[in-house]
């Protein structure tokens, strides 16, 4: 079995707008930083894979111009997913497992602030029955939060405590704010941000050459739930549970979770069976700024950084796509490549 690790990570996230005009301006600084950190050039990368959305850019084929960030010649082996770039990392992981290449660079980018994203995301819903009602992303999340509260699964106070941990504010003070969409307050909703993420993956000895403590991927898996909001138990995310079971997440010390709303951390804690001692989003996760399509990949990068820095030996990262945690990816990483969960 090919051993594959995260060996490099660069990320930018800027609430409000970055002022960058396009993906190229967001990506070039990250690529330069990674090349410098790892002592590599463009020519060392065997496979490139990206994640982004045309609906953020308001144009078709928005990922095409981002390729300008890589350079002109020679042609590259490259692919793209119209999803959070965590799924691009998954595609690159598959490519590395095939043994076709030994190094891959994965990137995600987006200008979430360019449009009214909260409203645009309604276009992810069923176009015949749901989208015409224009339920915006925050309104839907509020329905999910309300269902959990009424089922006795969590409280507004526990939601505020998630935010308080991220922002170092007092939960009690947060609860004095008025609602954005009952029962969500501003602190419950991750603000959209411009941003980009880049991660370098490498296999076997190549990973050991590039990094003193590679974050070895011991398991990575993703699943999707039904799009039918009325057919789902919205307080659950079964696809997150099955992805975690497939990836193998035993004895993790740190979990980086992609949670656009505070209550979604509470959903995921249960689905991922996280023990009380697991540190969740120690740097605040996406609640400080949600750079869509780059954020899930950034969770993988942040989790890997805990291993690369020596701060942890075993970590978990989670990424999500779609409304209300519909699609979920779980990536488990260890300081040792031999510590592996089930293969798929």
């Amino acid at each position, binding site marked *: 079995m090919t051993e594959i690790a995260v060996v490099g990570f660069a990320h930018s996230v800027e609430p409000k707008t970055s002022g960058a005009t396009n993906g190229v301006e967001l990506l070039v600084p990250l690529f330069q930083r990674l090349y410098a950190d790892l002592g590599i050039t463009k020519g060392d990368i065997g496979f490139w894979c990206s994640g982004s959305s045309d609906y953020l850019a308001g144009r078709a084929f928005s990922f095409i111009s981002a390729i300008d960030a890589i350079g002109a010649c*020679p*042609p590259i082996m490259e692919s*793209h997913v119209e999803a959070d770039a965590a799924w691009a990392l998954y595609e690159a992981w598959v490519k590395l497992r095939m043994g076709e290449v030994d190094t891959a660079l994965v990137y995600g980018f987006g200008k979430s602030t360019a449009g009214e994203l909260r409203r645009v995301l309604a276009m992810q819903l069923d176009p015949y029955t749901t989208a015409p009602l224009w339920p915006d992303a925050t309104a839907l999340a509020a329905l999910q939060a309300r269902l959990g509260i009424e089922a006795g699964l969590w409280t507004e106070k526990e939601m505020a405590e998630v935010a308080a941990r991220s922002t170092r504010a007092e939960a009690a003070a947060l609860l004095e704010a008025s609602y954005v969409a009952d029962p969500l307050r501003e602190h419950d909703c991750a603000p959209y941000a411009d941003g980009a993420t880049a991660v370098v993956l490498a296999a076997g000895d190549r990973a050991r050459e590039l990094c003193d403590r590679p974050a070895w991927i011991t398991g990575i898996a993703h*699943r999707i739930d039904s799009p039918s909001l009325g057919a789902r138990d919205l307080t659950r995310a079964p696809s997150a549970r099955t992805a975690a079971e497939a990836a193998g997440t035993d004895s993790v010390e740190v979990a980086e979770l992609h949670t656009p709303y505070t209550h979604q951390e509470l959903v995921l804690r249960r689905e991922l069976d996280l023990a009380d001692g697991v540190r969740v989003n120690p740097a605040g996760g996406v609640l400080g700024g949600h750079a869509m399509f780059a954020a899930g990949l950034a969770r993988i990068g942040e989790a890997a950084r805990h291993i690369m820095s020596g701060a942890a030996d075993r970590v978990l990262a989670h990424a999500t796509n779609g409304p209300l945690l519909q699609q979920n990816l779980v990536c488990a990483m260890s300081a040792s490549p031999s510590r592996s969960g089930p293969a798929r």
Partner: protein
Amino acid sequence: MAGLCREAIDRALADAGLDWPDIDAVVLGKAPDLFEGVMMPELMLADAIGATGKPLLRVHTAGSVGGSTGIVAASLVQAGVHDRVLAVAFEKQSESNAMWALSIPIPFQMPVGAGAGGYFAPHVRSYIRRSRAPAHIGAIVAAKDRRNGARNPYAHLKQADITVEKVQASRMLWDPIRYDETCPSSDGACAVVISAAPTSGPAAWIHATAMRTEPTTFAGRDQVNARAGAEAAQALWRDAGITDPLHQVDVAEIYVPFSWFEPMWLENLGFTPAGDGWRLTEAGETDIGGRLPVNPSGGVLSSNPIGASGLLRFAEAALQVRGRAGDHQVDGARTALGHAYGGGSQFFSLWLVGADKPGGAA
């Protein structure tokens, strides 16, 4: 959208003799989401395409996406992640006007303002000037592909009676591309099952795959004979052990949205030296029964559901080596090429399939 995809998937599963529990994962490809006005439609299609509870990966690499979808699905099996993967690609062009999708004004960028035909016409003129090809080559390709389409029950356009003269008499759209030399705007879907082991009936063995990308514009870029396409082909031939493509490949399904791209891609793929592709076309060697039948299915010129078009090329190549192409079957086809390109001739995906297992008989 759900119905389009499901119809193709049901037929693919029946053809493979498989049922839903046999499928480990689904890969869905399509071109820009703006074409149908649904953001990441794979999310809302998850139930219809049988992905709920399973891994679902969405690929988007411009016009080459159908091919890339097949390659990503194949790699999931080749990497040992899954045993059986369903690849689905679709486009429902009747929801919008895709011809102009390349020309949306974008802040801080020079607008193209030409539509797809206007964008590629200068490339064709440049090809004609370089290769000194006679003016009727494009019409020969168009008439041949439309006649082939009449043999394919799934083709959008069926014009059994079309002639070179009729094509030449059709309205000029983007000099030198005439109305009959242009692909239609189609609704359609394609589904392919990729398996680690044979299922029912004959298999098309995947001998090699290749993907290459280059930026749209840079100083010195050859847009007629793109380096990314040539290098993708070289890698494919190398990995499949092909030293003389024209002799060793029996049939090719090549992405030809505008007629002249047949000779252009024949050269880019290495079937002929640069400047000679049109000679193969003019001699009738790309007809069914010729040395290298190209697009016996009718190709993109007979049906263009954009996101599906690349996977259709790959699937038609597979049908040929499985001997299941019906009225457009090429006799004795053992080795077939599937080709797709996208963007401004900058994204390429290819696969080579054979009736025999790589390295030996089936």
